[in-house]
């Protein structure tokens, strides 16, 4: 316990000991640090199991094809979770915006207009989800679970369960700009990283991020100090909608194909990425950079298992092992942690 009442005591006037800047950064960002350490250990294990595969760049090129979608979704989800809520509806919002995009391009519309409308659709769907939680006061866990079914159901009704080929877009500028290749590098990785940088800035350098954290930390205090708590929460859900809009377009372009269940596969892996990345469940704190690391960790498990020569039957088991072990790691590196979540 440090007393500040009596100036001049030796312990108070001594500056904190000088530290290596990297160590200091990791001390301030424990969650990011332990997520990164976990990733390094996991890759070391992979590399030992099958050095031939993990020391060659091709394997990373394969991981990077769909990793950006997980990154974009996980980064946006951190905002909702830090605000003290959860969003389980984002997979269907991915589907809604993919449907909007497909409808525009398959009726002869300009793909760029399709992209813009898909993003708008994503934001609007996110606003609907946020409205239920922030303004009607519904539990975000249950409300967004319901909305996930509702949006997906709408897609199925509209499409009668049918997919649509999109190979005719492969020569368009949009395709090249969003999901083309520069050498071995899939362009979408650049978009994923740019989105993560945007997320970091929004989270740490803008009023929005600051207010999201205050709302998730102590909602009553935030309200008392004049923050529009409902609007901040709604905006966080809208931001997930925007991310899902972008993710939806990327997902169907990468697959050259619209399919009515697009996005569904991301629900659990993206949630896992956020928590493996070190964002806790109780709100108020979180890490964007950690969620990128978490997405990379979760996105590499399957590849790692196959490369190690195990059969696909091991995949789910190792997902479980990685998620639980990383949560234990975070628990151990967070000495003053609260315990448990709120939803």
């Amino acid at each position: 316990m440090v007393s500040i009442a009596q100036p001049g005591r030796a312990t108070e006037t001594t500056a904190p000991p000088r530290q290596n800047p990297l160590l200091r950064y990791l001390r301030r960002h424990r969650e990011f640090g332990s997520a990164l350490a976990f990733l390094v250990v996991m890759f070391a294990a992979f590399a030992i199991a099958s050095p031939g595969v993990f020391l060659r760049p091709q394997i990373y090129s394969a991981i990077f094809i769909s990793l950006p979608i997980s990154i974009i979704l996980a980064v946006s989800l951190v905002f909702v979770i830090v605000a003290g809520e959860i969003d389980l509806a984002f997979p269907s919002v991915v589907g809604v915006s993919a449907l909007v995009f497909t409808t525009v391009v398959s009726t002869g519309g300009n793909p760029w207009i399709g992209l813009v409308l898909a993003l708008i659709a994503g934001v609007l769907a996110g606003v609907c989800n946020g409205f239920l939680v922030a303004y009607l006061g519904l539990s975000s866990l249950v409300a967004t679970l319901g909305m996930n079914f509702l949006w997906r159901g709408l897609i199925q009704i509209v499409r009668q369960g049918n997919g649509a080929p999109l190979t005719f877009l492969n020569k368009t500028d949009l395709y090249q700009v969003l999901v083309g290749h520069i050498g071995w590098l899939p362009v979408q990785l650049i978009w994923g990283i740019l989105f993560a940088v945007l997320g970091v800035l929004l989270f740490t350098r803008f009023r929005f991020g600051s207010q999201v954290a205050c709302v998730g930390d102590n909602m009553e205090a935030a309200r008392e100090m004049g923050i529009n708590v409902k609007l901040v929460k709604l905006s966080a859900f809208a931001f997930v909608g925007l991310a899902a809009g972008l993710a939806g377009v990327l997902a169907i372009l990468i697959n050259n194909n619209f399919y009515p269940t697009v996005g569904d596969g991301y629900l659990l892996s993206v949630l896992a990425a956020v928590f493996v990345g070190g964002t806790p469940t109780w709100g108020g704190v979180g890490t964007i950079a950690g969620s990128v690391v978490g997405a990379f960790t979760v996105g590499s498990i399957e590849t790692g298992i196959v490369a190690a020569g195990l059969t696909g039957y091991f995949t789910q088991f190792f997902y479980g092992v990685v998620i639980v072990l990383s949560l234990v790691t975070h628990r151990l590196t967070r000495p003053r942690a609260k315990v448990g979540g709120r939803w």
Partner: protein
Amino acid sequence: MSERADTAPILELRDVSKSFGAVYAVRDVNLRVYPREIVALVGDNGAGKSTLIKVISGVHAPDHGEVYVKGERVHNWSTAQARRRGIETVYQDKALAEQQTVMRNLFMGREEAGPFGWLRLGHQRAEAEALMRRIGFTSRLVSPDSVVATLSGGEREGVAIARAMFFRADLIILDEPTQALSLTQAREVLRFVERARDDGSSVILITHNVYHAYEVADRIVILDRGQIVGEFQRTAITAVQLIEYMQTVAHEGAPVN
């Protein structure tokens, strides 16, 4: 109060009453708070301290009586109006976001930002540092970037007082700021209170600890069963006399002229 007749009070209550059902929580209270003055409001549990500060801070509208702020009568008194007129209340929960930094708490809801909400972090940090020095944070281990959860109870109270000061509150109301604090920490908080006054704010300090009241207050107001039963300049009375007075006169419930 004759020596203060030349300065206008920051806040004046005239014959203010507030009842809940048939019970008067506050009855015919007349109270003036002058610029740069610490007024301690002391009384036992149930004396009406909480109700009185809720009237002053706009949470409750008075049933009878008038509220004047800087000589101007106020109508439709509310928390928002109180804050707009420079009255900040620090409740016991202190309204701090504990996992955030001191700086973020100081600027919560009133962030200094440029276009699109780009935070002027350098500017905020400099202001936070200056403010913390002014209110008396001397430890170099507590900086604007310290997380509130790592601070002591007294330091947290200091952050809440600093936040009220920062927004140029003319009057800061502190609800039991020394409760549940150790002796050193309570002393530290009282020092914060003095600093706030020296910085130009008036303070209403609610406490049931007479010694704390006596230590910093310029004037001590004793409340009992919803009524003001005594009012003393600190220089006119000793702490022991004050306690004796509270034990005898106040509990008779007889108002003193």
